[in-house]
């Protein structure tokens, strides 16, 4: 019996190949974060020496870390794969949707619109994403193949049972499927895999000096042009790294000295706060926040 990373890897590759086999126009949603970088690595193992049977699609909120964007472009170029970028900003302008407001204006909920538009534009029937079941309770019941209706909505009661290695991706026109090949991975598994496979990551995952606002909840938010500061804000300079790479406005940094993957794994083994709890401001609002956003078509 092979090791657990081999089993997880085999499962993910199997799911990627099923996606290629079952759908006409799949896409891989690429965020520039470690989970989607792992997906790209898995896709190499699933399809090389052929080209990926799908483009990489990035929904750019306009609040992304420049390091992550640069990494994205370099990766697509190095692999010679197609990269499609659609901007939340354009959707907002075109449809007259008010931009996110507040001190830390999060475009996270707004990217749903752009995602749905992009799906429509390219008639994608399957979107591969890097979500994991361990991230959040509502995700613990998510399927590998998760069917969304025409409005991108997810209905937890209508999920298809998934048995053995038979994934049912049959859909009606207009519907699409979100595919999660690394459903069964935990954050630590992802890091162990990155270590084993020597996968390259954007620099913000590793320790660096950063000017941050210390929020009332004790979170460290990067100082940048999208965050509105006022006098009462406490600005601190800390050695930090990111555990997830989302928007600069709603992803908090964690204090860390970890400069390489081994260091991060060591840290994670001793950490007591979950990945989302540590880094996402938007989930704190309500316990059922994720469930609501999923039903509305969010990833």
């Amino acid at each position, binding site marked *: *019996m*092979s*090791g*657990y990373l*081999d*089993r*997880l*890897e*085999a499962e993910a*590759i*199997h799911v990627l*190949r*099923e996606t*290629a*086999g079952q759908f006409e126009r799949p896409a891989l949603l690429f965020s520039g974060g470690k989970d989607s970088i792992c997906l790209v690595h898995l896709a*190499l*193992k*699933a*399809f*090389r*020496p*052929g*080209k990926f*049977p799908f483009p990489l699609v990035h929904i750019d909120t306009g609040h992304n870390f420049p390091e992550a964007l640069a990494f994205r472009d370099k990766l697509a170029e190095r692999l010679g794969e197609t990269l499609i970028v659609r901007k939340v900003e354009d959707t907002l302008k075109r449809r007259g949707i008010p931009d996110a407001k507040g001190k830390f204006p999060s475009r996270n909920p707004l990217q749903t619109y752009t995602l749905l538009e992009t799906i429509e534009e390219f008639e994608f029937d399957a979107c591969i994403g890097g979500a994991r*079941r*361990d991230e959040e*309770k*509502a995700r*613990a*019941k998510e399927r590998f193949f998760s069917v969304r209706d025409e409005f991108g909505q997810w209905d*937890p*009661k209508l*999920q*298809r*049972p*998934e*048995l*053995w*290695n*038979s994934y*049912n991706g*049959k*859909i*009606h026109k207009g519907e699409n499927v979100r595919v999660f090949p690394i*459903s*069964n991975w*935990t954050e*630590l*598994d992802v890091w162990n895999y990155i270590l084993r496979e020597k996968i390259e990551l954007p620099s913000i995952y590793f320790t660096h000096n950063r000017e941050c606002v210390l929020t009332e909840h004790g979170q460290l938010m990067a100082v940048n042009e999208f965050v509105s500061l006022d006098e009462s804000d406490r600005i601190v300079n800390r050695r930090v790294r990111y555990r997830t790479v989302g928007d600069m406005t709603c992803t908090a940094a964690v204090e860390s000295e970890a400069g390489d993957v081994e260091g991060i794994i060591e840290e994670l083994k001793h*950490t*007591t*706060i*979950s990945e989302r*709890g*540590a880094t996402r401001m938007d989930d704190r609002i309500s*316990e*059922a926040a994720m*469930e609501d956003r999923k039903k509305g078509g969010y990833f």
Partner: protein
Amino acid sequence: MELLRFFTAGNVDDGKSTLIGRLLFDSGSISTDIIDTLTKQSKAAGEHAAIDLALLTDGLRAEREQGITIDVAYKYFSTPKRKFIIADTPGHIQYTRNMFTGASTADLAIILIDARNGVTEQTKRHTIIAATLEIPHILVCINKMDLVNYSRSRYEEIRQEFLEATSGLSLSRVSFIPVSALAGDNVVSTSENMPWFEGDSLLSFLENVEINPVRSGDEARFQVQYVIRPQTAELHDYRGYAGTVWSGRMNVGDEVEVLPGGMKSRIFKIEHDLKEVVSAREGQPVVLHLEDDIDVSRGMWIVPVTDRPAVSDFVQGTICWMDNSVFQPGGAKLILQQGAARTKAAIKEVLFKIDIETFEKLPSDASLKLNELAAVSIRTAEPLVFDAYKENRFSGAFILINEYTNQTVAAGVLEKKLHL
């Protein structure tokens, strides 16, 4: 490090959520922010101020409102020895399908019994499902031992009861552990309250139990998922069959047959992990290359000529009906999916239903309702390539899809080919 996948089944209130919560909690797998949230929820629910461990596994809002687990929730934890994936499945009879789902990928089943109630009809049902899906190992946890004074004789009594009640089933391996999920006895460490129990605690049992490779025989079974054809100048003639070796071992040079169809060829190259290898084994995703230029497409099987699976368009199997709609002969058209293979199919006859609480054959009407288990005969448009599920968990399993709604309406295991 190895991976153990198990599923848990019990009646409502037997303490399943508490037990899983306890495993996660005591093994240090729960983060402090999640504990904070739980503490708040437990208080809001007006219960005692302590953390309600069951809240750890009850994910969705509908469930929180009804207070019962209604779907399969996957949970992850690891110890320095092993990584675990738990499929937490509901116990009610109306969720038999969810149990089926959770069980389909499990290496081990935990069946929970309330020490006060002993073996119930539901216990038998859970065991029947585990037996039907050939789960390699069954672990019976007799819970709430604190409520029966940690009595050894009560434990022995239930053990006997269980063995007698399930003697008609062909269970592979069965073990028993007396626990108290609430108090933590025998969950992570052995209990001082039950010095008479000589076995391991639940956690160390899970850490040490041998992981029997899922029932898949020695025969090599490979199904094509995707054909890789770069069609570039340098790789003009490259034609690789991508898929997973489900069982056995495949070697360069092996004489193989492509089924259905029956064309013969030889493996001339195997790629695994982007490298050329001389052989590939069970569980590995690979790319196979054949010596001859024959027509091989998605869903076909590549197998050794020396060990052929059955090929037939008329088969018998046992299915669990999973849809709210009632199956009627001549009703909705069906599609049978077996891994990467799909074909139109029709249930020809419901041979008999299985009483999932007594395991007796019931005289059957022709219909099938949600959560019913039945032996059926199935005709398929394209021939199926399969092994009996007892011999091979992957080539012997399938799902049925309603052609109009696209829903998965049934899942089943294959037994044998039939003759018209």
